[in-house]
């Protein structure tokens, strides 16, 4: 049944929408809200750790902060923001009018959103608010038996469990939608071999989410059974296994890193060619590497568990698989560099963030290979070295590319350009802050500082490095403030973007900025990987060569 479009209020226009672009933007705004909250939690923790024997907060509050910081960052910032960009961009880039299941798409967003709200409702539940209420305090991977009712009475752990269960339903719904949309709704002529790399990588991400959220959900349900129905899944004394929790969690947890980084690879793969004025180098290799990473990443989870005491062949297997996953990742880095090689590079803000990513992600990969080596990991497991490595991936890799994506696609989403000068300030201050915080964070880890300590003794050589790390957070906070100001200011007063401000080559730039409800008046037809190049250069189209 079709009815004419009627005018609606702003609330119903947005809250009840089934339009992929509006849902994508809601994901993004929701994630930015939680990004700010997560950042505030990080600032509070770094104030506490700036000096030894600090008493800025209680140990209990510190435990709650690092638990919420990690959980928020993974489940309510990184995942939804990437789902948001994917939602907005995938249908546009493949020439579709919407996602395959628009209502499921809306449902997925709301499940994710309510999951985050449940997590933070814990702050206001029971106890004193300033002490963190009943906020969970078991860390973002919530190892057993800390989560049992013996060590975690009350409901704090339940908030964590339920919020992730709810968000997990949203993630699975989103993944189903991505896969169905990409496989079934491409415009005429867009074969898999011509599909934008962003669509390819969201396809891989969707597959990974489907496979990995299931064990996490199963583990959460088992934990609920243990806590509410006297189950013994993770109760070693009663025949259960705490190590089983670790396996279930990390079967989700490590591929989750790839769930987050693969869409970021997609951003880089779209931005670098446009700002190098060259087609992507090695498109088939990039696709193969993405799919390869997707498969291999499912077999590396126990490199988080070397210190559990696995048999040596178990250790050897996970060392090997983790080393292997570095190969397709290396292929990608070579291909991005080869794309830049000989190109006419424009260092606009999106490209600056991508360049920062290339360097920082390489370092993150190298420390990852170090930690993948079992004997090295035995020395540094649960140390600040691991925290530094992880944040190099999450901030230096993922957050930097998300910023790049904002600068690149904000004009399409709003019709306004972000301010370039503010963008460059944002980039350079962020780079300084990032390296101050996370370069120096490796050193106390090497010197033996364990993660998740709320304070430490002086005289162990950790003080200076911790102080520098905390100072770096000030720079990062300033950079994010500039970014937020830039977004707000540009949204209202930014220069008009036009339809195609970067002279790009993919289909989202073939429609207005912002796009109309229907995306394209008529479904486009493509003949190459760069359909806009073909339109702009009819005398020399790509399809002659593909």
């Amino acid at each position, binding site marked *: 049944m079709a009815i004419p479009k009627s005018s609606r209020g702003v609330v119903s226009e947005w809250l009840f929408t089934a339009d992929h672009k509006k849902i994508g933007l809601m994901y993004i705004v929701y994630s930015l809200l939680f990004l700010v909250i997560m950042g505030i939690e990080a600032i509070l923790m770094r104030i506490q750790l700036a000096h030894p024997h600090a008493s800025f907060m209680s140990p209990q509050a510190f435990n709650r902060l690092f638990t919420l910081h990690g959980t928020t960052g993974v489940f309510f910032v990184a995942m939804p923001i990437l789902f948001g960009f994917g939602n907005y961009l995938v249908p546009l880039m493949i020439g579709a009018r919407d996602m395959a299941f628009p*209502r499921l798409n809306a449902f997925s967003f709301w499940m994710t959103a309510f999951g985050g709200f449940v997590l933070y409702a814990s702050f206001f539940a029971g106890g004193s608010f300033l002490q963190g209420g009943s906020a969970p305090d078991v860390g973002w991977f919530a190892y057993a038996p800390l989560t049992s009712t013996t060590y975690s009475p009350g409901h704090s752990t339940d908030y964590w469990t339920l919020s992730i269960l709810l968000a997990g339903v949203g993630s699975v719904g989103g993944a189903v939608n991505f896969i169905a949309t990409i496989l079934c709704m491409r415009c005429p002529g867009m074969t898999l071999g011509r599909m934008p790399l962003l669509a390819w990588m969201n396809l891989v991400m969707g597959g990974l989410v489907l496979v990995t959220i299931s064990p996490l959900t199963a583990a959460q349900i088992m934990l609920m059974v243990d806590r509410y129905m006297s189950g013994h899944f993770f109760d070693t004394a009663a025949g259960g296994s705490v190590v089983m929790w670790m396996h279930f969690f990390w079967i989700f947890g490590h591929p989750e890193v790839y769930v987050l980084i693969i869409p970021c690879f997609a951003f880089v793969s779209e931005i670098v060619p446009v700002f190098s004025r060259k087609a992507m180098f090695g498109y088939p290799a990039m696709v193969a590497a993405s799919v390869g990473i997707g498969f291999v990443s499912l077999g590396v989870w126990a490199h988080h568990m070397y210190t559990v005491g696995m048999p040596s062949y178990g250790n050897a297997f996970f060392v090997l698989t983790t080393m292997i996953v570095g190969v397709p990742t290396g292929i990608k880095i070579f291909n991005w560099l080869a794309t830049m090689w000989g190109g006419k590079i424009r260092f606009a803000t999106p490209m600056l963030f991508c360049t920062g990513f290339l360097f920082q992600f390489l370092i993150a990969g190298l420390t990852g290979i170090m930690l993948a080596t079992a004997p090295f990991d035995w020395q540094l497991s649960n140390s600040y070295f691991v925290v530094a490595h992880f944040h190099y991936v999450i901030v230096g890799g993922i957050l930097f590319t998300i910023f790049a994506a904002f600068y690149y696609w904000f004009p399409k989403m709003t019709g306004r350009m972000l301010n370039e000068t503010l963008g460059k300030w944002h980039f350079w201050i962020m780079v300084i802050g990032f390296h101050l915080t996370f370069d120096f964070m490796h050193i106390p880890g090497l010197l033996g500082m364990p993660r998740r300590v709320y304070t430490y003794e002086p005289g162990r050589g950790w003080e200076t490095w911790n102080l520098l790390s905390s100072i770096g957070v000030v720079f990062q906070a300033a950079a994010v403030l500039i970014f937020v100001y830039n977004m707000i200011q540009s949204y209202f007063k930014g220069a008009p973007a036009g339809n195609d401000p970067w002279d790009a080559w993919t289909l989202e730039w073939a429609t207005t900025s912002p796009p109309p409800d229907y995306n394209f008046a008529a479904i486009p037809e493509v003949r190459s990987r760069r359909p806009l190049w073909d339109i702009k250069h009819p005398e020399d189209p790509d399809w002659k060569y593909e």
Partner: protein
Amino acid sequence: MTAQHQSNPAMHSAPEHVALPAPTAWPAVLALGLTLMAAGLLSTNIVSVVGIALSLVAGVGWARQVLPHDRHEMVAVSAAPVQIATPHRKVTRMAAVQAAPHRARLPLEIYPISAGIKGGLAGGVAMAVLAMFYGIVSHGSIWYPINLLGAIVYEHIDVSTAQVEAFHIELLLVATVLHLATSVLVGLLYGAILPMLARRPILLGGVFAPLVWTGFLHSILDIVDPILNQRIDWWWFLASQIGFGIVAGLVVVRQVRIPTWQYPLAARAGVETPGMMDEENNHS
């Protein structure tokens, strides 16, 4: 600076209206209902009951949105064509695709894959002979080096020397598989790398590489596996590595080379390459 202006050809066949999914509150209501169902576990059963009720209502409402047919709304299509423009001058493609082949950085000829496999197998035989010779000279047993190799997959090798010198069928099988696989893989690597080593490939591949590899292993094995490290005679280890390298290298270089496709990689990828070529119209 020239500018290319095109309107999107697809716009020519645009319809006047497009049917899009109608907005609906039911997905949000269902999500809220499920959340309240769960939140009842943290508060009171009443919250769960409200959640169940909301979920049921939302489920029915959603079903009515899509059954028997999806509810759509008609959106009018803008008549204005979307302009697609580029301020960039045109860029020609690599002329090398049509011109005479030009070698950039790739070798003119390479060995076929089979050369690497043959070299690896031959080197593997040489290494095995040297290792067994060492076993006879040092321990009076060819099984000593074989058992050491096979034992690297086992957790505990803290056994007596007599046991290491004895025959063990499972260690022989493991060592054979490991030795064959590694020999073939390293042989393939030799086949790929040797054409790149323009000067003295046998010296580089047969002596320098084994020296580096042995030095690397020597520096870490005491950490990775100290018990195994105690049983290794590093001079013999180095000799067997060199034996492998020289024999594998000699076999590989005796194979017939095949020419590579000489177009630069950028040309083969079919990309425009500003900076490496003249651009059309000589515009700056």
